[in-house]
């Protein structure tokens, strides 16, 4: 949002998954099933910024993160990283680009190969990208990285199963950072951890960010984590970005009814009973058959006819603050209801 060019720019990114169409389906003329996990998301991230991406399970936030890194090939749209169109890169150039954009995974148990030692796991990026001249240098760099994330270099020859969840997550962070990337997708890096460990890992991530000059896309379903870390927040619902803006605006004065319902779910210690909890009815609709019009209308208390017919446009509601809702001008708020 500053004058300089953003480090990462996502433009109308779409990711569809096509269901396998069997012969019987073709013969009976049943149409191919298409899941639109991400439907035309645009956002930009400035260098050194942390953008929090929030939404409930299945809304497509992990898919968005992985599509940006081309771990899942985007169906359409563009991802520009530091002026380079990542989505157009051929394999060798993409491999080189992968050194600069990395990912930290949610599950510290599944994300480490159980048959590799910590030294091998963290050393792999260095060896793949030829970042060290000798095995001894690989080992030195790995040892330095492993100590930077709070483990000991004596741990290098151990296997992942010999570590706790928090320690494993540190190993995953070391693997992501050892090649000195600039941009990291943090895909719910603390959701699988105990609360006490969560705080340590978040602290580690913020320390490393300032030390190594990193930029994060931080994916979470935990508003308090997002609120604590982020400079800007993006709210996703059923594959779409419904609200995006500076953290203090979006969390303090949410404009989209979905964001408001998320905020109302945050327990407040200092003002007990002040807010009333807005319960959304029903489940997240299936992305196989998303509702027409505004995707949120099936659960939105303010939904009207136009919401059921037409998809809302994204509008600017404040400095750097956008939201997609038909009734923005009416200044409705779920959060004020009980005071009214």
């Amino acid at each position, binding site marked *: 949002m500053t004058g300089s060019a953003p480090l990462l720019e996502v433009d109308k990114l779409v990711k569809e998954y096509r269901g396998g169409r069997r012969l019987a389906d073709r013969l009976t003329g049943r149409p191919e099933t298409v899941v639109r996990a991400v439907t035309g998301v645009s956002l930009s991230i400035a260098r050194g910024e942390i953008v929090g991406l929030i939404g409930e399970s299945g809304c497509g936030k992990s898919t968005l993160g*992985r599509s940006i*890194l081309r*771990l899942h090939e985007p169906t359409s749209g563009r991802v520009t990283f530091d002026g380079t169109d990542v989505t157009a890169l051929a394999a060798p150039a*993409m*491999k*080189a680009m*992968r*050194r600069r954009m*990395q*990912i930290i*995974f*949610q*599950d510290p148990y*599944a*994300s*480490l*190969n*159980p*048959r590799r030692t910590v030294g091998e796991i963290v050393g*792999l*990026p260095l060896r*793949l*990208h030829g970042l060290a001249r000798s095995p001894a240098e690989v080992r030195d760099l790995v040892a330095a990285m492993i100590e*930077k994330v*709070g*483990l*000991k270099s004596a*741990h290098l020859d*151990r*296997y992942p*199963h*010999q*570590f*706790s969840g*928090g*320690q494993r997550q*540190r190993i*995953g962070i070391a*693997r*992501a950072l050892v*090649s000195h990337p600039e941009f990291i997708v943090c895909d719910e890096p603390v959701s699988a951890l105990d609360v006490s460990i969560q*705080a*340590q890992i978040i*602290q*580690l991530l913020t*320390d*490393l960010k300032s030390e190594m000059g990193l930029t994060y896309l931080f994916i979470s379903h935990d508003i308090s984590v997002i609120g604590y870390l982020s400079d800007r927040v993006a709210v996703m619902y059923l594959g779409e970005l419904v609200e995006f803006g500076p953290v203090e605006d979006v969390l303090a004065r949410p404009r989209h009814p979905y964001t408001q319902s998320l905020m109302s779910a945050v327990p407040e210690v200092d003002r007990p009973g002040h807010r009333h909890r807005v319960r959304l009815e029903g489940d997240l609709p299936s992305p196989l058959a998303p509702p027409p019009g505004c995707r949120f209308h099936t659960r939105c208390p303010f939904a009207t006819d136009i919401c059921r017919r037409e998809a809302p446009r994204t509008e600017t509601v404040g400095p750097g603050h956008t939201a997609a809702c038909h009734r923005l001008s009416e200044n409705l708020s779920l959060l004020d209801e009980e005071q009214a």
Partner: protein
Amino acid sequence: MSATEEIIAAGPAEPARETPFRRNMRAFAANPLALGSAVVVGLFILMAIFAPLVAPHDPADTDLLRRLQPPAWLPGGDWAHPLGCDALGRDILSRIIYGARVSIFIGAAVVLVATTIGILAGLAAGYLRGWVDVAISRFVDILLGFPYLIFAIGLMAMMGPGLGNIILALVYKEWVIPCRVVRGETLAARELEYVEAARAIGASRGYIMLREILPNILSPVIVVSTIRMAHVIILEASLSFLGLGVQPPTASWGAMVADGRAFILQAWWVSTFPGVAILLLVLAINVASQGLRDAFDPRFHE
């Protein structure tokens, strides 16, 4: 990082535990039946390797005076030929000992070649998906549609008998089994986060298939391969019984059973003892591989 670093660095990692493979092997050793069967299989293998030292006679030596001589404990037998002699007066025990070489060599060779092909094809189908998967999987389905023995008989009839041709005829279909196992395991493993992590740091597809996925799916493949070895030994015996296997005078269990068929009423031992040898080896391999499967299947632990 300072405060948290202290906490983590001070907290020792869990004490070193044994690797899953060693734990599985310990579970295997704790099963007396399976361990005993493995010992029996080992004895058969030693017998095959050291056949010239173990066998009392040359397996091809004919002595028409000893034609259809009964086993030692029956009237007319003697301990020079403990299991008696066949229609050409050859020592049955020696021929069984030498016959183990054929059965075990063919069993091991077929399983080894078939498993190698199956692993490569299964990895490619399961990891690359798309048209590679369709091509390999449909080919596998077609091969599965042929009855195994008829298919092998047809191939042997086309290629002619011989050790190399038997192995080829059996490998043609045998690779399908490890291929299906590997494909299934690969489909599950390719979605794991450590595979995605390897892609995220720019590892090639070959590296991911062979170095990240393969080591983690090898256990079920080893188990299936040992079970299949018993099947292959029976198939080889069947081909030899039908005269399509190893050609005389090389001793082969299946051919020995066939040789004795004409005299089964006067000299039951000619067919029976090689048949018992097949039974013992196949049974031992099956029980041992059952034990192996139980030991490697985590559902049987704890």
